[in-house]
């Protein structure tokens, strides 16, 4: 059908793309994304709130706790994902019983993305007008009420933006997870496209991932706009 040339000079052919496998890969990627994003938010949001509240000048200010959390978060963020994934194989095995497939990919994805998301949450919460927090203290709000009724609603657009960035990052992480047995589009791209010299598959998977990222970003932007009141 269509032929063209990759820069290395390989002939590209789209005539024998294994569409069923591509479909399975897409589903696996979407599942990885969905579950890892879910757990990333469930873990990263409280972690980010706690990180913010214990930081200097906030009402749970606690230097040792903040310092330790901060270092842990930074370590997890500084280890390249592909290495982190391998290093935590035992932990993954202990949590989900396997280190392969969609299941095996979720713990490392969450371990990588949650600290990143927590950091973004902390930064976003710092943007909330101090005066508003102070006003709610003056009105007799408890700490929990300040978090739930002031910080989170006021930071909502920023938090959605943070979740969007995290989701986009997760798409690329799932591709890397594919390299060590997680399946998904990344796995197809690497196994068939790269090792199997089938640039057609490579291109199809890349196009799908680009489309996925675009979709996530558009959705995120739309939600941010919807909740922005400034």
């Amino acid at each position: 059908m269509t032929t063209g040339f990759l820069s290395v000079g390989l002939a590209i052919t789209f005539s024998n793309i294994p569409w069923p496998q591509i479909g399975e890969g897409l589903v696996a990627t979407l599942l990885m994304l969905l579950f890892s994003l879910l757990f990333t938010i469930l873990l990263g949001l409280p972690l980010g709130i706690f990180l913010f509240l214990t930081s200097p000048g906030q009402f749970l200010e606690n230097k040792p706790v903040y310092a330790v959390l901060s270092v842990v978060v930074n370590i997890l963020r500084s280890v390249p994902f592909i290495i982190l994934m391998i290093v935590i194989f035992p932990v993954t095995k202990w949590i989900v019983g396997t280190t392969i497939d969609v299941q095996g990919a979720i713990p490392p994805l969450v371990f990588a993305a949650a600290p990143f998301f927590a950091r973004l949450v902390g930064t976003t919460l710092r943007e909330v007008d101090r005066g508003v927090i102070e006003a709610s203290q003056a009105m007799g709000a408890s700490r929990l009420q300040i978090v739930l009724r002031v910080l989170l609603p006021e930071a909502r657009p920023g938090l959605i933006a943070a979740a969007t960035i995290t989701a986009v990052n997760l798409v690329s992480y799932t591709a890397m997870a594919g390299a060590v047995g997680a399946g998904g589009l990344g796995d197809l791209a690497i196994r068939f496209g790269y090792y199997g010299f089938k640039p057609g598959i490579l291109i199809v998977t890349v196009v799908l991932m680009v489309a996925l990222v675009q979709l996530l970003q558009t959705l995120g932007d739309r939600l941010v706009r919807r909740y922005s009141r400034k």
Partner: protein
Amino acid sequence: MIRLEQLHKSYTVGSKTVPALADINLAIEPGEIFGIIGHSGAGKSTLVRCINLLERPTGGRVIVGETDLTTLTAKELQQERRKIGMIFQHFNLLSSATVQDNIAFPLRLAKRPKEEVDRRVSELIQLVGLEEHRTKFPAQLSGGQKQRVGIARALAADPKVLLCDEATSALDPQTTASILALLRDINRRFGLTIVLITHEMQVIRAVCDRLAVIESGQIVETGRVLDVFLKPQHPTTREFIEQVEDSAELREVLKHEKAAGTRNIVRITFIGEKTYEPVLYESMREADVSFAILQGTISRMKDTPYGQLVVELNGTTEQVEEAIRLLLARGVEVERL
């Protein structure tokens, strides 16, 4: 209603201790509007924030109603704070909540039943005149409207005290006047005690009953607004009064007149209804003294009319003495300059 006793506040910056408030003693009566005026950095904001313990004083007592707030646990303090409303220079509204949700906020914090919240919010929206803006977000409102939301929110939980932290400083003069009128109205209708801090003497003159002047963390003068206005004791107070009176101009006039050898210059102060009576003319006619008004103000201090005239009296020494005696007899104050 509010008593501050030997209040001290200092900040620790590195190894240094910086005093912010020193030995503040104040008693604010129920139902009065009490003004605290000072330059920026004088400590007035710290002082008002000590009243609801947004700033915890390093020493002394803060008694609101019958309760010494400094002795309360965090939970008890939350309860007491609900009885103290506060409004701010930058309004500090929830940007993510509508006008009605902002006003409902303190009621929801106190977990009041929904019907009560709805009823109260409607009352307050009407009180501050924002019926058409119920479902708007703060970003869609003007400064004056935002402060009205702030006031409604502060009143929602039926406080006994309202603290105003530079509440009109971010507003234009016309809007300031309308917000001040609203504060006076609320003070009268609900007998609410209001503590207001500002750096503008116009604000004090328009609404306050009594005032305190703060300078470098200390109260340098305190008294009824009228008394302080007419007879300021401290240089800082005089400086503030010059914001609204042309006393600087008067000094010029006096210098000029003194140089010209004119002697009999007096300052006559009228307070109350006498302001509108022909006291000056009658006294001068009886003493057969002619006069020239060099400078004068006739105005109102909150609800009390007052006037202050600087007058040059022309006549013999006896005639002038007689004129002054007659003025004093009519109950106005006379001061030779």
